[in-house]
């Protein structure tokens, strides 16, 4: 997928795969790819919750629609509320059996990572990016200028918001369709920002894929295992890679989402480049 708007030219590819043993319809991650606006989101519906795939889609779309204007907890509560209303409306569209109601009250949960790219002010100059994340969906930045090695000064070089594979577990914080359960989330919204150069690669991944990248690629800079996927004709190579790593026991059996974005060039004289404000860090 290629896109160009506000001077940002990107080449992006999205790969998805349900957990082995699940059907395509049971896949509960979600992604938004908007090359036109430079917004990219991966959300991962928590499998222990109900209607989690729907919630992941709504959360991803909410990020794509824009971030809150302010960074306080109330602004984030208000920002998420339309997605919560949409989830409630959808799940109650038909009568529910008694055993589903307690689970509906518990709500659906999703981790997420949202990347915003902004173009450089001058051709060949530095562009800016910002990221907001909840839980263990992660962003990686790989510098094209360093022959595929992680951008050493990037806060996402080894993974963001997690950079230690040991920190992955089965109990991440996650955004919930039930407002009650988000109160502990708002103080822990992770956010950071940085710069990019033409040729840089950004990767957004749900937890199992992110863990594998952090464990198998980051320490040895083995990005050549993923880079060919950017130009692959279809997802055959991705599926083969996943199957091999599942067999090797190196990749956890879970829904998988891998979103790769290469910034091809940054030519925009109309829009001055500014650091990206992610409006996170609620308290």
């Amino acid at each position: 997928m290629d896109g160009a708007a506000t001077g940002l030219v990107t080449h992006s590819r999205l790969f998805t795969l349900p957990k082995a043993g699940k059907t395509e319809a049971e896949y509960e991650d979600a992604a938004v790819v908007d090359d036109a606006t430079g917004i990219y989101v991966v959300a991962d519906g928590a499998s222990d919750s109900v209607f989690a795939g729907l919630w992941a889609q709504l959360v991803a779309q909410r990020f794509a629609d824009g971030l809150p204007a302010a960074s306080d907890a109330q602004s984030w509560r208000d920002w998420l509320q339309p997605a919560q209303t949409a989830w409630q409306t959808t799940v109650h569209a038909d009568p529910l059996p008694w055993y589903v109601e307690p689970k509906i009250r518990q709500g659906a949960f999703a981790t997420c990572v949202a990347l915003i790219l902004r173009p450089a002010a001058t051709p060949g100059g530095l562009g800016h990016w910002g990221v907001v994340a909840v839980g263990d969906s992660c962003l990686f930045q790989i510098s094209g200028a360093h022959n595929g090695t992680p951008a050493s000064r990037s806060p996402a070089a080894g993974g963001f918001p997690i950079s230690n594979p040991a920190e992955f577990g089965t109990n991440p914080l996650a955004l919930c369709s039930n407002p009650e359960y988000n109160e502990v989330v708002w103080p822990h919204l992770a956010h950071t920002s940085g710069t990019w150069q033409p040729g840089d690669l950004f990767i957004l991944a749900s937890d199992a894929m992110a863990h594998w990248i952090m464990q198998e690629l980051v320490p040895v800079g083995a990005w050549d295992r993923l880079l060919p996927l950017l130009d692959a004709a279809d997802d055959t190579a991705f599926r083969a890679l996943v199957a091999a790593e599942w067999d090797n026991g190196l990749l956890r059996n879970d829904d998988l989402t891998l979103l790769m974005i290469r910034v091809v060039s940054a030519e925009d004289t109309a829009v001055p480049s500014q650091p990206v404000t992610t409006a996170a860090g609620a308290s």
Partner: protein
Amino acid sequence: MPYSTQITRQDPTCFLLLIDQSESMLDPFGVAHVQKTKAEGAADAVNRVLENLLLRCTKGPNDIRDYFYVGAVGYGPGVVPVLTTPDQEPDELPRLIPMSQLPDLVIKLEVRRKQQLDGAGGILTVEEPFPIYVEPVAANGTPMCQALQVGYEIIEAWCKDHPNSFPPTVINITDGEASDGSPLISAQALRGLATNDGNTLLFNCHLSSNPAPAIIFSDTDQYLVDDYARQLFMMSSILPESFQQAAATQGYRVNNRTRGFAFNADLVDLVKFLDVGTRPANMR
């Protein structure tokens, strides 16, 4: 590492509940401000475990995933199946039932009130359906050894059919006064049954008339009030490492000597320790 196999529909695990239904369960339950018999306390504990197992497997309307199979055996007026499907034969071993069939076995739905935060600083009272699968029964002696032996037969067959699954869990809910001998040997035999992922977990829930403070997941028997409690503590499996981590996440203070034992409390939180997928830290 043992006890690390993912629980999936392809490799489900099982829960077997052994319920003391002897006459002594008519005695009052020793929890302050709770006016009920131990039999009522046992039925409540079983119904809550079943409710939580079903909750974990529910993904939507007509979408209950068979991560767990569950069975229940009562002991008192004989050793009898308690959760039964219509096709259960009288002489057949109690069956382990897939979770998707559990809603069909509800005897009645009670309405219980629960308070919860509304997300805007207020408190809401909500009414929730509470499914009753098991009702209080109390009669005759306490053939706990026999119940553990029936449990052995059920679990032995399960392990044979599911060698690669997460090991079975057996929860014995009792006042501890076995009338057919010492249950230690039968308990040891049951704990000896294994899948490739580890030994069967036997946990005990001791319901007593003694109003001593409730204990859950203890690493010592020194605060237990009587020999029945100490015996049940000894019969209980040590929590596997994966359960210890999950218990710590839930706020329990546990270590590598902590056993799956409760005194005048239920073990419903055990259900939350099982890994059937991502369970967010802020989920309650």
